[in-house]
């Protein structure tokens, strides 16, 4: 089973929910931090990241000996990643989507595979908890290819928890596509509600089952609950605003670490996800 934890708005508590959930699942689960632009789950799980590998995108390089300057590569590229200026072929690897068009279309076989570093995938364990995350290279614009790569760490024999990036566009879609359940996390504020609505629309487009966690549940107003009711979006858990929780979060502590009550609550959350 794969569960994506998503929110629309950043800072509502995605990482709090995904890390605490992964912790109570223990050996049954694995945590994939797919918020590759700003991966934070490791700061709370504190795994020993024993393995690391670099992930690359394929980008075109041109063999000038073979190139006949026909310009077909520039013509097919929709992303302006390869262009012909007089008798020079310029490539802009950072714009390349790795569609392979230029290589296919080149009549002289003058285009060969180069690579652009996307970032790192680091893996390790904390006790029985299996952990993987992606870390986008600073300066790299495209996170979806790295997110896809992190998702290849999914194991069929585990309950996979994905910490998704914020927003509603391609990165979060990549982290939610083909999962079994999306757990949405929001706060009961106008910003939280506004972005939750967008995120719910995105999950609907993907046709995936969903449920809601309301964090800092006693701040703000009641409009998130009203919306959830209208939408038929089940509220699976509420976490109150508690300065102690906020302070232990600031130090990188999990809620479940020394609270039997929260352990029970997160186990219940998982049971509710299964039956929803």
């Amino acid at each position, binding site marked *: 089973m794969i569960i994506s934890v998503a929110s629309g708005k950043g800072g509502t508590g995605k990482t709090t929910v995904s890390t605490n959930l992964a912790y109570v699942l223990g050996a049954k689960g694995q945590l994939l931090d797919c918020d590759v632009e700003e991966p934070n789950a490791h700061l709370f799980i504190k795994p020993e990241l024993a393995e690391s590998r670099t992930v690359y995108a394929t980008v075109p390089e041109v063999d000038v000996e073979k190139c006949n300057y026909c310009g077909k590569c520039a013509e097919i590229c929709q992303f302006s990643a390869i262009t012909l200026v007089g008798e020079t072929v310029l490539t802009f690897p950072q714009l390349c989507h790795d569609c392979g068009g230029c290589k296919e279309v080149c009549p002289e076989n003058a285009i060969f595979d180069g690579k652009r570093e996307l970032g790192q995938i680091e893996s390790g364990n904390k006790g029985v908890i299996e952990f993987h995350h992606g870390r986008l290279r600073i300066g790299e614009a495209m996170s979806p290819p790295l997110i896809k790569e992190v998702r290849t760490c999914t194991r069929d024999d585990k309950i996979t928890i994905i910490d998704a990036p914020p927003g509603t566009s391609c990165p979060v879609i990549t982290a939610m596509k083909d999962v079994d359940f999306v757990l949405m996390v929001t706060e009961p504020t106008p910003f939280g509600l506004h972005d939750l609505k967008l995120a719910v629309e*995105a999950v609907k487009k993907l046709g995936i089952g969903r449920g809601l966690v309301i964090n800092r549940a006693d701040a703000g107003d009641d409009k998130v609950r009203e919306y959830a009711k209208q939408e038929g979006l089940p509220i699976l858990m509420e976490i109150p605003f508690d300065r102690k929780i906020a302070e232990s979060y600031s130090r990188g502590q999990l809620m479940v670490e020394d609270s039997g009550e929260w352990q029970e609550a997160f186990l219940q959350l998982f049971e509710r996800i299964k039956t929803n």
Partner: protein
Amino acid sequence: MRELLVISGKGGTGKTSLTAAFASLADNKILCDADVDAADLHLLMTPEIKETADFKGGSQAYIKREVCIQCGLCMEFCKFDAIGWEFVVDKLNCEGCGVCHYFCPEKAIELWEKTCGEWFVSSTRFGSMVHARLGIAEENSGKLVTLVRQEAKKIAEKKGLELIITDGPPGVGCPVIASLGGVTAVVVVTEPTVSGIHDMERVIRLAENFKVPVMVCINKYDLNPEQTESIIRTIEKKGITFLGKVPYDPAFTQAMVDGKTVLEYAPESDAGKAVVEIWNRILRSPEMNTITELILN
């Protein structure tokens, strides 16, 4: 003309609430919401929309079934798994690369220009604002960010405004990179949490890559005073200007519920006073008053 960009790396540190408060203090400016994915600034600005335009953000393949002979060549060429069994294009997977369109032997595949969102020019009680809405599950947020920034700049030039205040997106990827190019200075809003610090460091590295001067302010500083001190030491060691710290204050949430800035809702609060002080430091900062700017103008 100067452009101040407010970013944070981590979401939820208070970027938009602070941007809105700065907007209420600044003269002669235009606002720009570059968080096009999950734009929230309008919830505090209650903009009256004056102009709306479509954002054409890319292409999408479309297979004409009556022409298609189902040879399967497009499936072979597509690197994005975007052509499904019934020869229907999966809109979420298609990146609009056009390779299928190019190679289809029957010319059965068209490449359609796609409307990926809308952008708006509005008036607010704090002046003009350019903002946008990216369609759900759409791509090319970077292009839309570039577009709203260009429009804000055009309006500023036309009206003789001196400052653009831009509310940036979270993260360090495509939309943030599109927000950073060519701004005068960046304000990073962080919080004294392990994740706030981690993400601040990444976003500072990104800004440095783009050679944009950075300043930092800390929100909710009293949640962890020790880490607040450690952030101040870290950034001062890097030679980065520290702008000040704002205490945790539920007034921010209450102001949001009322659709107001914190300075309208609780001007006399400690948080409100801290925000005013930070804004004054931004205005006086060497980062916002560089010589290069004089040369450019």
